């Protein structure tokens, strides 16, 4: 057997928090290889944010699945902020988008490239992922596997333990650091092989069987992101922009402004953190949600916004609803008649 850089080979594993990456890391760890995990925070991760906001989610277990997986496996996990670098992947994906705004192939190449950089900087030997050939229509196909290897620069230092036997032997296998015979030949969209392997390994609890960890695969979220770019006339975003797309009802009654209306007290609490940066409406005559106004607004726009926002509070059937309207830092009282339900146009909802 050839020796890696150290006495014991060291692998860095991409850990999403789902089952496949958990299995891949476990299978390699079981071969006596030192494994540490990487988890990249893009800003679009479903993990985390949403638990902290809505009332209905406050009762759910508030755990970060990647951290939980690492703890179950007994490996270190490094969570890396890639928000800024990831923008280029979302804004200008070389391979385009999937069914929604998900640039899955570019994303995979980006993450493996970041893992390669980390591997080099920390003197590790190879990279492992939980990919399965044929599992995903865009990023996990036989034809795209070599693309990720090439564009990430990882080449044959990238090992996919769950389907390795369907791929040419990688360097860790050829060098004997990894026993290829103890790897797998999973293929296709069925989850049964992974679930069976989990049972064999005594893994009884795991997060979602596959996917579902990125807001960019969500059609409603993607629609709001496209609207954001269209309204601004170019494709750019800051972290706050993409966080706010996850919160509240988004209603655009005019091309130049939209309302973000909290759906419960949890979201109102969260949106209060943005009051200094946005014009906003606070209902004072009745119980109701906080509303942020995004875009330049005229007095007529503020009145229309208040009439719409009035629909979402306890005063929806009242003659008048009163707000404190904060526009350009100045607060004024505003009394409006709630807009009739038939006048709230369905196409305003994003």
């Amino acid at each position, binding site marked *: 057997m050839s020796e890696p850089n150290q006495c014991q080979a060291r692998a860095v594993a991409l850990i999403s928090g789902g089952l496949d990456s958990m299995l891949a890391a476990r299978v390699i760890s079981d071969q006596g290889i030192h494994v540490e995990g990487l988890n990249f*925070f893009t800003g679009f991760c479903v993990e*985390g*944010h949403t638990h902290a906001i809505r009332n209905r989610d406050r009762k759910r277990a508030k755990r970060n699945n990647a951290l939980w997986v690492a*703890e179950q496996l*007994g490996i270190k*996990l490094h969570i890396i*902020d890639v928000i800024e670098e990831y923008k280029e992947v979302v804004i200008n994906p070389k391979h385009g988008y999937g069914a929604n705004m998900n640039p899955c192939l570019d994303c995979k190449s980006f993450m493996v490239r970041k893992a390669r950089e980390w591997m080099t900087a920390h003197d590790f030997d190879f990279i492992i992922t939980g990919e399965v050939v044929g599992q995903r229509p865009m990023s996990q196909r036989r034809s795209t596997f070599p693309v990720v290897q090439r564009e990430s620069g990882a080449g044959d230092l990238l090992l996919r333990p769950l389907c390795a036997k369907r791929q040419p032997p990688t360097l860790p296998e050829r060098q004997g650091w990894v026993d290829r015979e103890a790897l797998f030949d999973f293929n296709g969209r069925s989850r049964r092989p992974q679930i069976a392997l989990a049972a064999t390994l005594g893994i009884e609890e795991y997060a979602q069987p596959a996917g579902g960890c990125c807001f960019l695969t969500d059609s409603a979220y993607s629609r709001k992101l496209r609207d954001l770019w269209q309204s601004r006339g170019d494709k750019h975003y800051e972290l706050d922009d993409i966080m706010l797309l996850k919160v509240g009802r988004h209603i655009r009654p005019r091309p130049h402004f939209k309302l973000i209306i909290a759906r419960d007290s949890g979201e109102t609490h969260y949106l209060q953190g943005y009051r200094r940066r946005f014009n906003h409406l606070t209902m004072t005559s009745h119980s109701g949600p906080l509303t942020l106004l995004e875009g330049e607004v005229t007095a007529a726009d503020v009145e229309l916004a208040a009439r719409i926002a009035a629909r979402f509070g306890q005063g929806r059937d009242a003659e008048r609803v009163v707000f404190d309207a904060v526009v350009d830092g100045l607060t004024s009282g505003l009394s409006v008649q709630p807009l009739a339900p038939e006048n709230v146009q369905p196409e305003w909802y994003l």
Partner: protein
Amino acid sequence: MSHQVLDARNLLCPLPVIRAQDRVKQLQPGDVLEVRCTDPGALNDIPAWCRINGHDVLQAGEQAEEVVVTLRVGES
């Protein structure tokens, strides 16, 4: 040994963990870091991160509407 306070309020998971992780890299073993957050998920996530990375959790709890986790930097 230093005792530092990290303000991670108004950040949502996993940013409080990332900020704590980045600050710990600048500290020495034995130093104490107090992390103040508003995301209730931090009450689980920062201690979990400490356990898997070899740091001691000295205290973790809620004070008013904040989560406060105090850790001692480990050797690794």
